[in-house]
């Protein structure tokens, strides 16, 4: 992989809860709010379905950034799911920071179904951030390099 020569295009996985953020992404789409194609969305029922293992797995397989989006605290379709997700992600991110993974490779954003604009700006920001961080080398599995 010759990163120097080509412009680096990050791989980004976005976990979106079905009820708010996925709908927010849909709204961003129907509003034609552009964000880079590097972001690929995985639909989950709720942010509390996102297992830290999924996030590490994404990095393992070559993702450069992972973002999780859910309903705003207090608005969870399942009433409390995102509160659990918030604690889990806070601890996970803190641990990643602890072992020296660059800050900013992971992010949580609460995006409601009405916030198409927020979804799009968040994704633009995130892609920019990851692009500036460069490829993920601290959490990748070398076997998956291609």
């Amino acid at each position, binding site marked *: 992989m010759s990163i120097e020569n080509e412009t680096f295009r990050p791989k980004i996985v976005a976990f979106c809860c079905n009820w708010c953020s996925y709908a927010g992404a849909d709204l961003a789409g129907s509003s034609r709010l552009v964000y880079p194609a590097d972001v690929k969305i995985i639909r989950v029922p709720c942010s509390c379905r996102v297992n830290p293992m999924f996030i590490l797995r994404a990095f393992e*397989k*070559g993702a450069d950034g992972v973002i999780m989006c859910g309903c705003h605290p207090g608005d969870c379709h399942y009433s409390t799911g995102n509160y659990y997700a918030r604690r889990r992600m806070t601890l996970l991110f803190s641990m990643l920071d602890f072992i020296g993974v660059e800050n900013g490779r992971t992010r949580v954003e609460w995006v409601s179904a009405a916030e198409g604009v927020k979804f799009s700006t968040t994704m633009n920001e995130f892609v920019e951030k990851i692009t500036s961080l460069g490829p993920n080398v601290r959490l990748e*599995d070398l*076997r*998956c390099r*291609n």
Partner: protein
Amino acid sequence: MYKIAKSNLPELYKAIAGSKELYLPLENAGQVNFGPWSEDCTPDIETLKSVKSPKDVFFPQSENLYTCQKEGKNIKIDPEKLKDQDFVVFGMKSCDVKGVEVLDKVFLADPIDTYYAARRDHGIIVAMACHEPEESCFCKVFGIDAADASSSIADVATWMIGEDLYWKPLTEKGEALTSELSGLLSSDGDENKVEEEKQAITAIINKLPYSDLSLEGWDGDHFEEKFNATNWEELYKPCLACGTCTFVCPTCQCYDIKDYNTGNGTQRYRCWDSCMYSDFTMMAHGNNRNSQMQRFRQRFMHKLVYFPTNNDGMYSCVGCGRCVEKCPASLNIVKVIKNFGGDK
């Protein structure tokens, strides 16, 4: 008999590494393990035992066997390149050298394991006598001489005496290596000094607490008696079913073969496995060793009964004492042998 000042060893390493890969005991984050030499490594040949045995030089903890790719309906198989360059393992102790002999019985038996065989073909073993054996050592019990690797499969035997390392080639490979290094090795090593050292080591070995263990009754003839003994029922109880003993052991060779999906294909790799793990024997029909007692028994029966039965009496234990030192529950093969009356 050759010798080299210990202070010159870094030069020796560099010289070897100039033409070959060199594996030697390295200190890393407070622990000593065998690893490949590099400019900034920290060799440590004073520490008697590496945490892991150096078996991984020949039988790595994980190794790729081949890569498989799909192109439409077609499958393409790319076998991993075999070792095709000579390399040197420096500083293996007699017990670990014997351990390789044990592995040979497994991997070089028909059908030959090509990955292992290629490494053995290209490996040059520089053995080293144990200057100060420790209380956990019991190689003597298995007829291994920690003072002298001359009678083993090593290519070179060495001794650390005072400020010098004494060097004696044993095989053609060893001779060739020696001549390559002739610029660094002086040929005026005093045989007498080596003899003195051997005697000193032997004297200590004879004093070691485990040196008198008896292996009487650990053979195929007593298989039923040992297998059905009630001792196992109590012995295994503290066992945590971890793999520490098997992974530090120079002779444990159980492995698993697994696939890893790289996104562009499948890498088939082999990795160490442990017969102590609860689902080790989980196979198509179920699990034939369902209790930890059975698994525990299997490990020791294998080392002390089954393996010698199949290999002309050669035990699959070399008395290196690593399990004695590392078992989280302080269980080990010595306690097993003693429990069956081996300390009388």
